[in-house]
């Protein structure tokens, strides 16, 4: 077990910068999730930590030891790959034992540790099968077994759940959370799925174009996004982002038929007439509220206890999504009053930075 520190880590391929000056500290025992859209450099970052890619600049420290120049096989880390990457010619037992045998551990110890890993992952009955004879979920567990058996300093997971069907994904998510609690080992986990990030992580790193956008706990990111990108990326359904400009102490929304709302509390006021972005989470909208926008319902999605309402001001461009409890009687064409409190509003400047 160890903590992880990245210092000014960069990776260039050709002239193109894949990860750019990433500095990050992951405390011991954390479940750290790298999240971002595809091509944001999250996988590259993970592979840099793993030693599968060579850093162009910067340092990687695992448990205080600088491993930047250490080859993958000497870093004492374990990784679970998206495709599982099980050795197809070996049994489950030999797959799990491979790392221990690489380290030339005595056979009795290998057997004991494999048995222990199999017990934790409920693989006991499958040990003599080949990977081809396993289901997707079982393969996933073998891949995890291969990682935990060597008791590495860090676990690295590269989109481990993306090859599973929706139901199994939810199940494995719970399994991973349980495993993390049980083992306490630091985990670095890559996903493009913000739900996975929110549910698993103790620390989320949001990446875009090879840069860190924001680091924090799931709720920190949800409640206090630093910028437009994080605000839009974290949370489901996505935060409504509306065009806005300040006029006096109000914000005019040209995309909502010119309706206006009061300014949220800010340390400094933005200049008048500058195009701003107003953020409002669908969950913050209800039928009642100190403030409101008058809209007309366009599409209604009934989820059972909740209803997802997509509405817009008559003749206007921007669609506002609201997640309301109940709402069984709502239907398209009806007028909809989107109510909310001023405290639920987020304001972003033209560059996307949050105004506080």
């Amino acid at each position, binding site marked *: 077990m160890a903590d992880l520190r990245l210092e000014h880590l960069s990776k260039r391929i050709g002239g193109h910068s894949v990860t750019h000056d990433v500095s990050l500290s992951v405390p011991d025992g954390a479940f750290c999730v790298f999240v971002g859209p595809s091509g944001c450099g999250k996988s590259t970052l993970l592979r840099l930590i793993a030693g599968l890619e060579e850093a162009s600049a910067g340092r990687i420290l695992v448990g205080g030891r600088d491993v930047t120049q250490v080859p993958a*096989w000497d870093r004492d880390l374990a990784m679970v790959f998206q495709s599982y990457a099980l050795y197809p010619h070996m049994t489950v037992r030999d797959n799990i034992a491979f*790392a221990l045998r690489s380290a030339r551990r005595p056979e009795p110890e290998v057997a004991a540790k494999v048995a222990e890993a199999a017990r934790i992952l409920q693989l006991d009955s499958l040990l003599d099968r080949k990977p081809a004879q396993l289901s997707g979920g079982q393969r996933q567990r073998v891949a995890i077994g291969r990682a935990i058996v060597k008791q590495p300093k860090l676990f690295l997971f590269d989109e481990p759940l993306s090859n599973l069907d929706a139901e199994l994904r939810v199940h494995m998510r719970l399994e991973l959370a349980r495993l993390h609690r049980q083992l306490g080992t630091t985990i670095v986990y890559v996903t493009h799925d913000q739900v996975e990030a929110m549910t698993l992580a103790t620390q989320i790193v949001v990446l875009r174009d090879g840069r860190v956008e924001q680091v924090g706990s799931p709720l920190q990111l949800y409640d206090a996004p630093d910028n437009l990108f994080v605000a839009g990326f974290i949370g489901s359904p996505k935060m409504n982002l509306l065009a806005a400009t300040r006029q006096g102490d109000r914000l005019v929304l040209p995309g909502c038929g010119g309706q206006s709302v009061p300014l949220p509390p800010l340390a400094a006021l933005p200049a008048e007439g500058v195009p701003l972005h107003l953020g409002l989470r669908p969950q913050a909208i209800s039928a009642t509220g100190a403030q409101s926008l008058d809209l007309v319902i366009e599409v209604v999605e009934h989820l059972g206890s909740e209803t997802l309402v997509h509405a817009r001001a008559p003749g206007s461009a921007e669609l506002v999504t609201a997640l309301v409890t109940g709402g069984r009687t709502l239907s398209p064409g009806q007028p909809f009053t989107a109510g909310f409190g001023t405290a639920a509003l987020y304001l972003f400047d033209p560059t996307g930075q949050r105004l506080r």
Partner: protein
Amino acid sequence: MKPRMTLRWIVFAFAAFILNFPVIATLITAFKGAGEVSRNPSLWVQAPTLENFATVLTVSDRLNVYHYLWNSTVAALIGAVLPMLVAFPLAWAMVRRGVGRGVLFPLVVNLRALPLIIFAIPLYMMFSVAGLLDTRLGLGLILAIVNLPLALLLLVNAVAEIPAEIEEAAHMDGARTGRLLLRVVLPLCRPALITTFVFGFITAWNEFLFGLMLTTREAVPMTVGASFFFATSGGGVQWGLAAAVMVVAALPPLVLGLVMYRRITGSMVAGAVKG
């Protein structure tokens, strides 16, 4: 639909008969007695006998078929295994690290298209100096060169088909290059290695030119030995015996080839299309 299939069967039977006619005729002749051969050249054996095979398989001054078979076996084994040994590490380095992709790969693969006679003469001279003339090892080394292009090609294709993630997983599991190659890449290349071996063994066994030029007594392979039998039998060829010799000579690659025909057909295509 049915009559069309019947017509196809007929065409197949006809093609199989024409293409294999020399083989069939030889096989039949091998069962004709010494007297019958000159009387009856037809494809029907009046009095089938094993006497030709008995003679061929009996060691005599004129013909020691076991010696030829042994020479062919040893030389063909060297010729089949050696190329895999030298090509395997390079094939991996080529696919994963681009080693030799620019020069070495085209050079080796193009060897396949060059007339072998080009190298035969200088090799003859080199072997005579190195004491490799008329040795099984010397012959095996040349056969290895003959098989090298296809071995490299098949192994490069095989390595390229291994997902990179599996090798990365092995690295994460603490395996350095040596362990990775032996424990992960090599076993995963097994189908290609078998194919390479089968194909290489057959090619090496069937090779004639180098056997003819580089051996005289001790290391004469079966193909050349069989032709000796034709050339040296004074007063006309004893066709029954000759046929039996050819059957014996052709049998090992034929058995291997028919048992593994799926592998040969596969490698044929890989070798042809990627080359």
